[in-house]
Each structure stands twice: as C-alpha cells, then as structure tokens.
C-alpha cells in the first residue's frame, strides 16, 4: 500500500474508532446497568463491568487520538485548504484530534459516575 493509502486508513480509524467505541460503551454499559437492576437481576457486579468497559474504550480512543496526531504531523507541509487527498486528511485529522478528547471525557464520566453511585438505587 502506498504511504498515502496508509495515512488515509489511519485518518479514517481516527474518525470512526472513537465514535464507535463510545457508542458500544454507552449501549452495553447502560444496558447492563438496567438489566442488572431489573426483575431478572443477578449476574456480575456492575462496578466490574463498568471498569472493564471504561478501560477498553479509553485504550481505543487514545489509539484513535494517536492516529489523528500521526496524520496531522505527516501532513504538516499542507493546510486543510490543500487539494485532496492530503488536504482532506489534514482537515479530518485536525477535527478528530479535538473531538476524540470529548469522547474520552464522556467515557471517563460514565465509568467513574457509574462506580461512585450506589448500585441499583433508582434515580
């Protein structure tokens, strides 16, 4: 694969990985929380599930962030106005560098708050 092709794949990974893993952590996390506290109940403790989910999601998001930074540095001679594919890669890299941090904050808030609050007390 050419260098540009590899950079392009890294850039798409930077864009979609963080978003995907947050959606997974959100769906599984809140689903397990509701299932655990419902009639069927039982199963492993909520804290364990949330910690594992948070760590896995955190690792994937940091990897996505790293991918975006690599693409950003690799396209440093161009600007986001430049013609494609370099311009497009630089633009999406710049954008995802900041927004992946938002996903990181969300999964941290999810995990920590879900552990701190008392399990199975209704809000």
């Amino acid at each position, binding site marked *: 694969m050419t260098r540009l092709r590899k950079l392009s794949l890294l850039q798409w990974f930077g864009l979609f990985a963080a978003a995907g893993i947050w959606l997974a952590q959100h769906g599984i996390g809140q689903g397990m929380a509701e299932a655990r506290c419902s009639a069927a109940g039982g199963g492993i403790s909520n804290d364990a599930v949330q910690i594992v989910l948070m760590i896995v999601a955190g690792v994937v998001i940091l990897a996505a962030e790293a991918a975006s930074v690599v693409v950003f540095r690799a396209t440093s001679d161009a600007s986001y106005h430049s013609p494609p594919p370099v311009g497009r890669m630089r633009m999406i890299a710049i954008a995802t560098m*900041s927004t992946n*941090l938002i996903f990181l904050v969300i999964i941290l*808030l999810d995990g920590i*708050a879900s552990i701190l*609050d008392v399990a199975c*007390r209704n*809000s």
Partner: protein
Amino acid sequence: MLALVPLTLLLASCGSAQDTLNPQGPQAKTIASEFWWMLGGCVFALAVITGLLVLAWVRRGSMGPGREPGERAGWIVIVVFGIGVMVVGLVVLFFVSDVHIMGQTEQPAAGSTKLTVRAIGHQWYWEFDYPGTKHAVTADEMHIPVRTPVLIEAQTTDVIHTVWVPQLNRKIDTIPGQNNEIELYADKVGRYRGQCNQYCGLQHAHMSFYVFADPPAKFEAWLRKQAQPAASPTGELARAGRNVFMTGACSACHTIRGTPAHGTVGPDLTHLASRTTLAGLTIPNRKGYLGGWILDSQHIKPGNQMPDINLDGPQLQALLAYLGGLK
C-alpha cells in the same frame, strides 16, 4: 434584556404555592441553591456571547486583509473557551449534581425513613394509603409528621401520573407495574401543594393534592382517626342519607369502610368530612359546593368518571347530612 433576567427571577421567589424557589424541604433547598449557582454561570456565559455580538456590531465596517483575518485569534477563542472552559465547567457540574446531590434526591436507602405513604394515581385523583395502619385511606390530602423522613411509594392503577410537591422534593412518575420511591421531609409545619405532572388525560389539570406537615402528636391523632371505620350516622336525616348512598349509584363507585359500600372507581369517602377540599382542590369542602359537585360534577371537572347524580331536594339534603357526619 440582560438586566431582565435576574430582576424577574427575584420576583419569582415570592410566587406561587408550588414555587420551586421557595423550598421547605432539604432536597428542594439543595436543588434551588444549585439552580441559583447555575443561573449565575448561565448569565455570565450569555453576557460573554452578547458581548461578542455587540463587538461584531461595533466593528461592523472594518476587517483585516484577505478572507481569513484574525484566524489565529478565532482558533484560540474556540479551543480555549469553546472546548476547554466548557469541558471543565460541565465536568464540575456533572460530578456535583449527578454524584453528590444525586445521593440526596434519589430513592432513599432502605430503612432510612420512619413512615411509608403509598401515593396511588387514579384518573384524575390521588389516593393516599398508610400501609402501617389497619388501612387508613384518604384522597387528595396527605398528612405527614413534620421533620421526619417519609417514604412515598408512587404507584398507579391506570396511566402514568407524577407525584410532585415542588417545595419539598423533586418529582417521581407512577409507572404501571413499578413501585417508585422518593423521600418527603418537611422542615416546617404547614400545607404544601403538589400536582400531577405527567399528562394523563382529560382532567390532568385538576389532579392537585395537599401535603399537610403536622406536629407528631397531631399527626398520630389524625392517623388513628383515619384508620377507624366510618362513624354510624346520628339523627334521622343522616340515616336517610345513608340509605340514599347505599341504595343509589354512590356505593357502586365509592368505598366507606364499615359499610357495605366497596366501589373502587371513586375515592374512599370514609372520612370525607375531615378533608378541607374536594375534587382535586378545585372546590372547598362545604355543604353547598359538595351538593353542587354531586349534582353536576362534569361542570367542575369535565370528562371525569363521575356521572351527574340526579337527586331531588330532600334526598340531596339527607345525603349531605350523612356525608357531613363522616368526620
């Protein structure tokens, strides 16, 4: 427009009987104080944006060279304020309210409350049971001891309603097949107004209720009285009234403990006379209003499930005498 914000909201604090900014319970106080903090932050943020818009208007003619003057400054403002400051502020707000304050307003820990009251929503009135007693039941007026944590079990017999006493605590829905719980704790003796807050049909607007916080002794006396079956009617007229009640349509829908009437569509009338209001706090509990309600309830609460009872004069007087005796 900006000065309007704090001014009118100050006015608000001396407002209605359901004023969330005039709290009388610990939970409502915490939420109200959090609101004032959040309002401060919002007014500041609104001021920043309004400042930027005014600055744009002031500079409206002048612009640097090229198509992207001041791009660097723009990026800095966006990243520092738009992302940085906002993330920090929101994380702080999140932990303060969804972990710290949440511990106070969520479902009370098992055993942390002294009394349990079951608030059961019907289509369009509230039934309050006291499970601890030999079944004291009343409607639209709940009594609780002051300065004691009371557990409210929110249930429903039909659609979703919401138990909400704004001055004491946040609201909780009544979900069919689910038993939701919140705590009510009144700091001071008094009468607190609440209202159903989830759209539940035609008379959703008239489904209010009172919570009376009484001194413990007064509350115990009230509760003992409510637990007893209905007093038997004294006097000829009252006995005739009971006949009208038992033979007429009333007993099909209402319950009076200690009598054959066991209907469950309408509220329990065992101690009707001890209540201060009727029909979801729309009318006071006086003979004239009670008579008007019995003859033409659709006028006061159109669409409610009580049909118009057609009684002639003497029958009505007898019935009112009997109901008046149900202290």
